[in-house]
């Protein structure tokens, strides 16, 4: 297997105060796999996905490293080439299905955008293809939904529409930014299964950004665990869950509910573990500057 997306020694700082946001992050997303990007709020997981997608805000400055997609460095190539590469090969499933669809445009128009832009479909063909896509994400009565506005649909349906839109251009890499966070638990499970099924069918690679270890255990092949923009542990999902090496990983796992072993209970993360993590970060920063 070869890496489709390869992030190498990526570092970024805040433009405002120069504080590090990403600290020497490296990760490889193999073709056809789901890579979980896990961490608490502010760990830098969203920043990484935004850098890959070229939508990072002006407040973040990449100071070092490469983001290699298909042999091209997304940090270095000209803006125009970058837009074409990202638009034609990458897709995003955003976090909040309530705001990710344009409230003023029909679902059908929004679904056909990418097909017409990157797949060379004419209006009629794109419309037909979009109907198939909606059917494929198990939306009942797709023809009706195409004519509706986003506010006619439930949150779960909107997320399905967004998934259909993401798979429309058959992207090589899909970035799912906490796609299930805004959904309730039962819908969450359906959406995850759908995502997994489509991913397997299309052989798409996925970067799955989440803070939910339970979700990671369900669908990810590989996992990168971040803390304060630094990789704490990295490996296959099996290794991370069965034989975690880092104390932070062990503490996080102990703090997650285990339906397979309710007796284990929930154990709050020990302050000492967090303190040790911060010490590691400080040591890292010291080496960088010293």
């Amino acid at each position, binding site marked *: 297997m070869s890496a489709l997306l390869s992030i190498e020694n990526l570092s970024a700082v805040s433009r405002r105060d120069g504080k590090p946001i990403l600290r020497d992050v490296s990760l490889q997303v193999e073709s056809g796999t789901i890579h979980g990007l896990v961490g608490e709020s502010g760990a830098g997981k969203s920043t990484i996905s935004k850098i890959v997608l070229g939508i990072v805000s002006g407040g973040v400055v990449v100071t070092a490293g490469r983001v290699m997609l298909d042999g091209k460095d997304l940090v270095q190539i000209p803006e125009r080439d970058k837009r074409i590469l990202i638009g034609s090969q990458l897709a995003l499933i955003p976090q909040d299905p309530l705001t990710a669809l344009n409230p003023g445009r029909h679902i059908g128009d929004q679904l056909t955008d990418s097909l017409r832009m990157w797949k060379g479909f004419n209006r009629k063909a794109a419309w037909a293809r979009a109907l198939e896509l909606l059917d494929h994400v198990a939306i*009942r009565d*797709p023809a009706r939904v195409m004519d509706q506005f986003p506010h006619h649909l439930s949150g779960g349906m909107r997320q399905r529409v967004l998934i259909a839109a993401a798979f429309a251009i058959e992207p090589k890499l899909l970035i799912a930014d906490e796609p299930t966070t805004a959904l309730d638990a039962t819908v969450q499970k359906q959406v995850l299964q759908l995502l997994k099924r489509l991913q397997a069918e299309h052989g798409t690679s996925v970067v799955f950004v989440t803070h939910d270890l339970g979700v990671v255990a369900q669908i990810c092949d590989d996992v990168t665990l971040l803390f304060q923009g630094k990789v704490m542990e990295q490996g296959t999902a099996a290794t991370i869950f069965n034989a975690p090496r880092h104390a932070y990983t062990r503490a996080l796992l102990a703090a997650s509910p285990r339906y397979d072993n309710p007796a284990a209970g929930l154990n709050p993360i020990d302050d000492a573990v967090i303190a040790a993590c911060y010490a590691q970060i400080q040591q890292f920063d010291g080496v960088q500057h010293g």
Partner: protein
Amino acid sequence: MVDVTITAASHQNWKPIVAAAFSDPKVAVGGGFILLLIILALGADLIAPHDPLAQDLMLGSLPPVGMAGTEPGYWLGTDDLGRDVLSRFIHGTRIALTVAFVAATIAATVGTVVGLLAGYFGGWIDVVVSRLIEIWMAFPAVLLSILIVAILGSGMHSVIIAIAIIDWTRFARVVRAETMAQRQADYVTASTVLGFSRLGILAGEILPNVLWVVLGLFTLELGLAVVIEAILSFVGLSVSSDTPTWGGMIAQGRGIIYQAWWVFALPLAGLLATVLAFNQLGAGLRRSLDPVMQR
């Protein structure tokens, strides 16, 4: 999995929406009155019972039907020069509506474009536009319009230009704020990832969401333009005084209010009803058409 029959559907299903709009009482009443005015304006020559300029001093200051001393054929009476009030009112709708639609369209177009650019691109464009709007709005509207007409010379073109120059800020201000709000939404980010250009996003994604606000403002502006035109006619700065206008009739009627109050009352009532009708039409259209307001 369900088997779908794929039809190249006519997805722009506007028919039921348009039908719903016309069954809205506000649209029906407001729009109906405006439609009546448009018919009066277009067919003034045929509809008006008399020549609006024909004077007959023998028939001066005739009261409307129902009062003592009326003359048949002069339904709403005559002014002190013996000109038929109803005919003058009907001909006055021409100026009022032409000025309203042309001036409001220019103001809306300019204001929307400027507001979109300022709200979306921010930075120095926004700073320049915002300061300009603030300076603009610090001037009293009527005084500014009189000043502009005084510079350009009287006439309908001047009135239209004056109204557009004054009122583009109403659109620019609101559209700018709305654009800034929309720009933050995730769907704009999603469009960026998709590879849409910035102008493409502005025109294709943000504009459809801002258009409903513009529509509401546009109908308000139509009413305002009618009022400003009446004010300018009132002070004699609109079209030449031999063309009947509502403002001109009000000015004339004001002088003879104790002898012939009807000269003054009809255009005033017409003005009031027109502004109200435009406002109701706007509110009704927005209520029945804006997808976001339909939840």
